[in-house]
Every structure is written in C-alpha cells, then in structure tokens.
C-alpha cells in the first residue's frame, strides 16, 4: 500500500528495509539451509542483483562469505542469472530476468525468500549457483544444422523464407537458456527449452533436413538428464523471461511423433 501511495505521488521509494531468506550451501555435497539477512537502505531504482551486491558488500566488510549467485550481462540476455524469488523464477514480474527485476516491485518491510532453481538436473554448485550443463548436453545432442563453417555455402538470399516462419523461428530462438521453465514447472520439465530449439530449426528450410534425427536425439538426451515430464500447466510459458510460447512444445510433440512413426 505504501508503495502505491509513493507511486501515486510519483515519489522515489527510498530506503526500504527488508528481510532476506537466502539458501546457503557450501558445495554440491553438503546440505544447505535458509539463512535470514536483514538489509536496510534499499532503493527502488536498484535492480534485484544490485540489492544482493549491497548485501554482499556488507558481508565482506563483516568478514563473512558473500552469497554466490550467477550473473553476467545484467541486461537480461546472457541467461546467467536465475534465482527463485518468493516462489517464482526471476521473481514476481513478467518477461524479466532477475537482473532486470527492480526493487520498486517490493515494499518496505517485505520478507523475500531467495532460493536456487530446483531440479535434479540442475544440481546446486554453491549457494544460489546451479549447474545447468544438462541444457548444454541437450543442445549438443542435435541442436544444430550440420553445415561446415567453411563459408562455401549458397548465397544467403538463394533460399527465401516465409516471413511468418522466419519470425516464429526467431521468437523460438530468443530463448536465453536460463532454466526458468524448469524451475517454474512443478515437474521440473525441460520441454519448453528443448522445444524452442527444435522449433527454431524445424521452421527453417535449413533445419528441416535433419529434423527427424534432431528431435529424437534432443528428446532422448532431455529424458536422460532426468528432467520431469510436461503436464501442460503453462507455468513455463508464463515465467519465461522471453515469453517463449507453448506452441513450441506442441510443435515438438508433432515433430517427435511424426519422426517416430517415420522410423
């Protein structure tokens, strides 16, 4: 409510006091636990990660180990940052990554829980850092077009591509591989991620040639990594910072079944 009043008068929200409940875990083999950290002086213009920077600076000054979290570009495109914030991947806002989430989305006095993305296929490395190499392995299984990079290909404009297909392919390709889909899914399923890559190529003439082998190989790898199954709750689509559509999963299902029946 306080937040609303401030917003109404277009005032800067200054100096929020918050309680952070953060998952701390030394390494992959030890058990972790939630630890409370009170924090003061948080401004609405800070990004969520800058708020964590403030906490870490305080911890370092006190001689405590700062909270480890993955982050890099801090502009929502590298896919490094993760964090389950108050029970949602990348926090309560839509179409943002954690680095784009700003503290003005919270209120003075709030308690915020911060946990790593959870899935057996995403083991915790330390604190809030997880190992998402399972995503890499899904891509390695077939997420490419097998052309040599020699440059001896046909001219870029030799094969026209229907604009709608090109746009759909692009939209699927905007996946940043952050893992929010897996984190949001009650089944820890990686179908949205996998289907986005399958779709990107399935929609382009360049990718169609290997479509059958690709979808089978990628789904096989996805299953081997121990991700759960899709039960169409739609949580992934809603939490995806890039708004990757469920249509991609439907497309992958079609591709997969037709690949399977083709043999």
């Amino acid at each position, binding site marked *: 409510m306080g937040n609303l009043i401030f917003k109404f008068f277009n005032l800067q929200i200054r100096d929020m006091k918050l309680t952070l409940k953060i998952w701390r875990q*030394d390494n992959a083999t030890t058990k972790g636990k939630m630890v409370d950290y009170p924090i003061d002086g948080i*401004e*609405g*213009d800070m*990004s969520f990660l*800058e708020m964590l920077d*403030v906490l870490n*600076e305080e911890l*370092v000054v006190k*001689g*405590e*180990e*700062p909270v*480890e979290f*993955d982050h*890099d*570009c*801090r*502009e929502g*495109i*590298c*896919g*490094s940052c993760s964090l389950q914030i108050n029970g949602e991947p990348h926090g309560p806002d839509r179409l*943002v990554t954690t680095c*784009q989430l*700003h503290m*003005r989305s919270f209120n003075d006095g709030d308690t915020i829980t911060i946990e790593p993305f959870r899935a057996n296929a995403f083991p915790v490395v*330390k604190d809030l850092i997880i190992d*998402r*190499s399972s*995503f*890499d392995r899904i*891509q*390695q*299984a077939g*997420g*490419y*077009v097998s*052309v*040599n*990079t*020699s*440059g001896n*290909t046909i001219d*870029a*404009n030799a*094969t*026209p*591509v229907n*604009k709608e297909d*090109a*746009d759909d392919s*692009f939209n699927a*390709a*905007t996946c*940043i591989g952050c893992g929010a889909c897996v984190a949001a899914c009650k089944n820890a399923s990686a179908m949205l991620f996998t289907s986005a890559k399958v779709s*990107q190529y399935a929609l*382009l003439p*360049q*990718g169609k040639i290997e479509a059958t082998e690709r979808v089978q190989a990628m789904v096989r790898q996805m299953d081997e990594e121990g991700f759960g199954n899709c039960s169409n709750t739609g949580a992934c689509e809603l939490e995806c910072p890039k708004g990757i559509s469920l249509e991609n999963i439907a497309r992958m299902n079609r591709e997969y079944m037709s690949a399977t029946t083709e043999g």
Partner: protein
Amino acid sequence: MSVLDSKIPEGPLADKWTKHKNDINLVNPANKRNIDIIMVGTGLAGGSAAATLAELGYNVKTFCYQDSPRRAHSIAAQGGINAAKNYQGDGDSNYRLFYDTVKGGDYRSREGNVYRLAEVSGNIIDQCVAQGVPFAREYGGLLDNRSFGGVLVSRTFYAKGQTGQQLLLGAYSAMNRQINRGKIQSFNRHEMMDLVLVDGKARGIIARDMVTGEIERHSAHAVVLASGGYGNVFFLSTNAMGSNVMAAWRAHRRGAYFANPCYTQIHPTCIPVSGDHQSKLTLMSESLRNDGRIWVPKNKEDVLAIREGKKKPTDLSEDERDYYLERRYPAFGNLVPRDVASRAAKERCDAGFGVNKTGEAVYLDFKSAIERYGKEAAFKHGHKNPSDEEVTKLGKEIIESKYGNLFQMYQKIVDQNPYETPMMIYPAVHYTMGGLWVDYNLQTTIPGCYATGEANFSDHGANRLGASALMQGLADGYFVLPYTIGDYLSKDIRTGKIPTDSTEFDAAEKDVKDRIDRLMKASGKHSVDHYHKLLGKIMWNKCGMARNATDLQSALDEIKALREDFWANVKVTGKEDTKNAELEKAGRVADFLELGELFAKDALHRNESCGGHFREEYQTEEGEALRDDEHFKYVAAWEYTGNPRDAKLHKEDLTFNNIELKTRSYK
C-alpha cells in the same frame, strides 16, 4: 625498421587476401589430428574459431568463465552485423565498407586488415543463414537490412534487437556439433590465469577451475585469445560483469605487445547512472537514432525546472529545445558516429544542460517519429484528416513494432514510459578498439599466441562503427584464423604432444599460486569492489570522453598508488579451493589496475585527438577532434618491461595507399 612486422602481403589491396591464402602452408588432415589448440573465450570470435578449427580436424579445448559458452557477452550485441552484400542496391561494395570503416576509425587502422574484413563480410551472412540463424526478413522472404551510424547505405543485417544473441547461438551450435563429435572439449567455469611459453612459443595455459579452485595445466601447439575487451577497467560499462582483461594481460606480461590501449568507445545512447549502487550500464541500441532526436533545453531555467520536477520535457515547445546534433552536423544529424555523438552530449552536459538529477543525461525523443509514422499510417488507411489522437496511436504502434523490446527494457529500468516522455540517455563505455597487437595473421608478438575479436586491436582504428564488432568477431573466427594458424602449425606436425610437466609449466603454475596466495593474505581492509570503483572513477574522470595531459599524468600516479594499496589491503573472503567470486574479481581487478596505468600512459603520449581518443588540447575552434597525421599515424604497441608505466613503445607506421587521409567530417 620497427621490430613489428605486420606481414601484410604485397600486391593490390583487393588481391592481398587471396594471394596470401594461396601462399601460406597447409596442414594435411592426418596431421591435424595430432595438433592441439587452446581457445580462451567462446564469444563470436572464439566460438566460431573453435568450431571451424575442430571441423578442420584439430583438437580444440575451449575455456570460458561462464557456465556455458552460450553466455559470452557477444550475446548482448543488439543492433546488427554489417556486410557488403548490396542486397538493397544502394551502391554498397567491399570498397565502400572498407572506406567507411577506415574513415569511421579516424584513419588509425590497417588498410590490409580492413579490406579483408570487408571482403569476407558477405560470406558471414551466407554462413550464418546456412546455420539456421533467423535474421529478419521482408515479406518476399529475402533478408532485410537497416542503417547504422556513420554510413550512407543500408548494410546492416539484424534479428530484431538481439542480433548478437542469434549469431552467438549460431556459433555455439556449430561448437556443439563439434563437441558431439568429440573434437572440442569445453572447459566451462574455467579462467585462464597465465600463458605458458616454452622455447619462446606459446605452448599452453594455466587455468583455474572456478568450482573446485583447482589450478590446472593445459598444453597445446597454439593458444588463441578471444577473451574480449577491457571496458570494465572503468567499473561501469556496458560489458558483462565478468568481462575482464586477464587473459590478454597475462599474455602481455609474457611478451605480447598491447596496442592502442587508450582507444575506447564511449557509446552515446545508454541509460544514465541512477545512483551509487549502480553495477553496470545498459545500452540502448544505436538503431534508436534512426528515429529518435537528441536534444536538451535551450535555456538553463528550463533545465533547472526539469531537474526540480517543476517542468516536464513535454512542456517545452520546439523553440525551447536545442537539437544539438542536427544543429552541429546537418548532413548526418542524429546518425553521426558514436564518438562524435558522445562528445556532443558531454559538451552540452558539461555546459550545464544535463536534464536529470546528476546533470548527466540528454533526451532521446520519439515524438516526431511517432507523428511522422502515425500520419503515414493514417494516410495508408485512407484517413486524409486524422485526429491527433489517431496519429499518435498509429505512430506508437509502428514504433513499438520496431523498437518494442528496447522500450520495454527502458521502462523496466527507469520506470518511465518512453512512448509518452522522451528517454534519458548518456554515453557509457562500450567497446575497446585497443587490444593485443597482432599481425595480418592475427598472431601476437609471441609465436603461437593468437588474438581474435575485441581482444586484438586490428580493424577498427580509433573508433568502431556500429554493427562492425559482430562482423569482425565472426570474420576472424570463421574465415581468417583457420587459414592463418595453419601456416604456423604446419611447422609443428612432428612436435608431438606438448608435455605439461616441464619446468616452464612448473614455474607458471607457481606464479599463479603465489599470486592467489598474496591476494588471500592481504591485510583485508577493503573489498575488491571498493578498489574497482575507485579505479573506475579515476578512469572515467581522467581517461574518459575528454582527456588532457595534466589529468592523465595524475591518473598515472593515482592508479599506481591505488594498485599498491590494493595489494597491501584488499580483502578476499572465503577460500581459494572453492567457488569464490571475491577471489575471481580480485584477480581481474589486479590486472585492470595495471592495464589502467598503461591506458593512461598511452593516452598521454598520443598528442592528438582521433576517434574515441579526445585530447582537449587538440581540438578545432568548433570543438572537433584535431588529428595529427604527421606525428601519430601509427599503431602504438607497448612492450611490458616489469612496470606498466615503463612500457616500451614500438610504432607500427600506418600506410594508406588506397584511401586519402582527410579530416573526418559529418557536417
């Protein structure tokens, strides 16, 4: 003759590369299997080169500090990639791309390299399309283009505001194909800590596994550094938080010359700093300058009223606004090159016309574009006398279709609606043209050590044009390095595996461990970020958009003092044998503290203004950059001698046989 041999092939400009490719030695496929290559960095330059080299048959090991090669900061490039395809039929050609790039770089780049870049640019697009990169297309199914600053043609290929992402994922997919074949071993969350030289040749690296803290030895017949630029020496930049100079700087300390460190690109359209908590700056694509008009108020009273919140920018009439780029540069207007646009913004803000609390922001206004597009759209719909509301509504829709994701990004960060009120922007450090000195083959002054992409200095001179970084990264990685490195490796076919138990590896590993030990054992007064922020302040204030001898001299001393304080008093928490972000940062900042000093030294020695390097002492009466071709038409390559300020200068004279040196004018 200088010790620097650029190895530019003889012959006419347009034939140099072809001739060179015909002349260099090749390695036969059976022998490639016995040769190892280390690739540090997996962005556009590193990822593309790793994929191509593995495909040729070499054994490649890639290293990146991120958890996956796909996260390299090339991914954040927004606007596009240039290529002289002339699909628009607007008169583009390899020569024109070459010309624009050399001119845009303020005549401080090598003709041979730039021409080669232009020559292979078209191939990049072919290659990427074949890989399934979803570039923007027109309704006819063919590729679309747009225009960028400093040029008069439309040669920029793009994928909305995410071109870098799509190109990087293309290179990453090519890498994945080779990882799946077992030809690339990828070491993620690994940081190169040092370069290992055996008999004067680069033969391996010491790397730290950032999860276990283990110090590892990796040997190879050649080492390629594709580790990006060093913009983070300024603390605040558009670079990723982890972007660092360690790999390049370690190579520099081992003997690779560092060229033109002072050439830094300050990008004109970034979101202004909002407070002390700021950790990084966000770019708003240059493509916005296609439609946005840049202005500040004409009168100081309005500036003050706006800062105090008594007036809104939309309250000011056209007469009360100063569209200073259009005023100063009528020919190019809002689409002048980046260095020019940045300096002009700084000039206005320094004169007291900055429009936010800190006085460091100017407006980027889309109102005219919304009106123009709205009228066009209404006309198309057959409304000859549309109402203002209708025009605004239609205009906003068009702007949204062009820049929707950027507007949304702005709104998320600033909490203001850029469709209603002008964006506030300010220049920020974006790209570093300087880097490791390389010859035509992209080899540094250490045999067997190569540098590609932003990590080298080669193609952009003193200022890079928009959409050329992606072009250079991929040109180096897909089409240049894979040829030129073979020439060197052809002499290594009988060498056999490089052992990692040699005294050279022992010594390098000990150096690395000692260094970590020193960092862990410092007195612990201040955090790493404390030092990084202080360094950033010195760099921004004294080595930033405008520099002068007095400031640069004092920067040299301040950076040295800060470095000494750092080594004595930095506080690194945690342990060295676990994941430890503080230790990682400390190692990087330690190198920035050395590079910063060399940066200032280079800027101090270059008594001229060119491109991104603007010395206040050297400007025209109108405040334009004043180049000194007589004395400074050279590449400044610095040799490490134990102390950054004592670095030894080597000059590579630049010869221009195919282009006439002129004063750059965009008026």
